[in-house]
């Protein structure tokens, strides 16, 4: 089987799966356009066919030459091998996938429980706390996976808990995941960066950032904006 490894099959399999799903979805908008003979689906289908060709081309390359690069140069061509060895293999990917999935699970909570809008606050506070605990526990042994999931968790919390309360927690978590363990510098840097951001964006540029919609985070966000403006 040449130089093919299981990861190569997974890679081409993912591309083929994606193209199959995308092709299937084109039937949803496969409508004629009166002024355009090719309709709405010809262009995406053309792209999908090219993608399939390129995916097989890549498989052929890996069959012949394994993971060797074509020495084309460029910023993305030379980074993938450094430091990647520790964080690979099925257990790592599964663990990381779980960390990345947690924010999305949190976002789906209202739909999963069919909650009315006014009853969501307390439930979201509780599930938020559970998700954060689970995330912290899972990322103890997988710092890189934690770094991949943390920004998404932060983004998922923005709408409910607001930028103003979440940003300092986010900054400290990022520093912790990147190996910083000295608390004083962490707090000092977080306070400094937060002040700079607040003055620049809230006071000078009047950018309206999400204040959150759950108490007491909502009141805190509004208080910060009021003090600065």
């Amino acid at each position, binding site marked *: 089987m040449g130089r093919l490894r299981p990861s190569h099959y997974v890679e081409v399999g993912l591309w083929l799966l994606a193209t199959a799903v995308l092709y299937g979805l084109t039937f949803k908008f496969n409508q004629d356009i009166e002024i355009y003979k090719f309709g709405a689906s010809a262009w*995406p289908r053309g792209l999908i066919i090219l993608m399939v060709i390129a995916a097989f081309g*890549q498989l052929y390359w890996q069959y012949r030459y394994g993971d060797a690069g074509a020495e084309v140069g460029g*910023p993305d061509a030379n980074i993938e091998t450094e430091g990647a060895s520790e964080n690979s293999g099925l257990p790592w990917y599964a663990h990381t996938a779980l960390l990345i999935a947690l924010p999305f699970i949190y976002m789906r909570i209202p739909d999963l429980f069919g909650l009315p809008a006014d009853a969501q606050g307390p439930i979201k506070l509780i599930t938020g706390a559970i998700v954060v605990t689970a995330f912290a526990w899972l990322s103890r042994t997988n710092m890189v996976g934690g770094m991949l999931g943390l920004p998404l968790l932060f983004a998922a919390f923005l709408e409910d808990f607001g*930028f103003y309360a979440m940003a300092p927690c986010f900054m400290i978590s990022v520093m912790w995941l990147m190996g910083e363990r000295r608390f004083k510098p962490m707090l000092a840097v977080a306070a400094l960066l937060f002040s700079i951001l607040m003055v620049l964006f809230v006071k000078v540029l009047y950018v309206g950032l999400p204040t959150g919609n759950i108490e007491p985070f909502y009141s805190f966000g509004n208080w910060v904006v009021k003090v600065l403006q």
Partner: protein
Amino acid sequence: MDIFSNFVTGSVSLFSDPLNILIFLGGVVGGMLFGAIPGVSMLTLAAILLPFTAHLTAEQGIMLYSVIYCTGVYGGAITAILFNIPGAPENAATAFDGYPMTQQGKAGKAVGAAVMCSALGGTVSAVIMMIATAPIAEWAISAFGPPEIFALVAFGLAVAASVGAKTLWKGWLSILFGLTLAVVGLDPVGGIARYDFGMPYLLAGVHFIPIILGFFAVSEVLVQCEKKATGAYKAPKLSVDFPTFAELWAHKIAVVRSIVIGFFCGILPGIGATLAAFMGYNEAVRWSKDKMAFGKGKLEGVISAETANNAATGAAMIPLLALGLPGGALTAMMVGVFQMHDMEPGPLVFINSGDLVWVVFAAMFYANVSILLIGFLETKTIINLLKIPFQFLAPLILLLATVGAYAVRGLTIDVIMMFAAGAAGFFLRRTGYSVAGMVLGLILGKIGEQTFAQAMQMVHYDFGTYLMRPISLVLLLAAVGTTATGIYKAVRGPGQAAKKETNPQSSA
């Protein structure tokens, strides 16, 4: 000497009003800073400022954006070189050689070359813009229809596919992925919703600012984080030794070539500085005797890309002002400024608002000159940013990116999209795909499909008629030639690929 007197009049009205001077200086410093701060770009600044231009006159608003454009395209080079984070796609090609130079401790040389070449490319382009706007606009109107623009997009993508990714196939997959992202939303001909998954948010399409921020800023932070966690992180080496005049003079042909390429790419709607930089770089590789050194820290790579992208800035104003066609994100925002003042960019601007045009031209000229002065002063400050430990810089980059993504439309889903793109970018880059290619695909996707549809309607779906158009034919042949060369190399395998450059194909 009509042009000269117009230029003098424009300069006088630019510098006779204190508010104009303030806006000019604010634009120069702001564009450079936002271009240079990792995680935000001149587009972030431009997006944040857009609502406020309603308080300015149209002249001041457009002038501010044109100044931000010139200095921002340069500013993005600093982070491309120092952090491997192109401030905008325009600077992606700069990172190819600029970042390896930083890793080798030659950051100062790379940044110095970027300062000089950006200023030179931009200034020359501004001068040509003043002289040639009218005749070139006239030619472009008659010679460049949708078939030619589509052919040019195809050629540009073919070029981009052969640079940046681990293999040609991964380059194409990256670009096709970007093109598919651009399909999301309403189709450009019939307005039919595609891949919207019933979400109203997706009807407007995938916004490119969160995607750019995610693919470039966030994924770069994540890559560095992994290196930090595994102990593979190497702090960039510092140096402030700028290149000597002799070093730059040795690359004079590359500079001239990039100015010509940059200008012609910039002039064409929808192509602009990004393709200019890629093509400037690609041509430098092709004409070089030492092709293998590119991508590993060759000064000529930085020079070619940076001269070309700034040379495109002046040229990009021509389709905007003469045809009303924005060539990229920033010029598209300028259309927004025009509309806020009840004006439409287009040929009538020259007749109705000749003053505006010349104030903008003068401002762009001075902005490029000021890159040289402020660039050297400010760059040393920015190089000092490298001394900050990365675990302290990372949260700042991520939060600036958050504000940037949110400020565009005020939607948290844009922030989620950005971080999702960041995580996706992390995995794709690890496996040798090109995030720059994806972004280029995303940006050119809509215009590619639109011009293809228009071209097909024009030629009544007859490819024979399409190929009878000489410019289209040459560009399509160049696209096919570039791809065929790539496939030929791909079949021959690694090693062979770089050693043997095949016969030159026809180029635009």
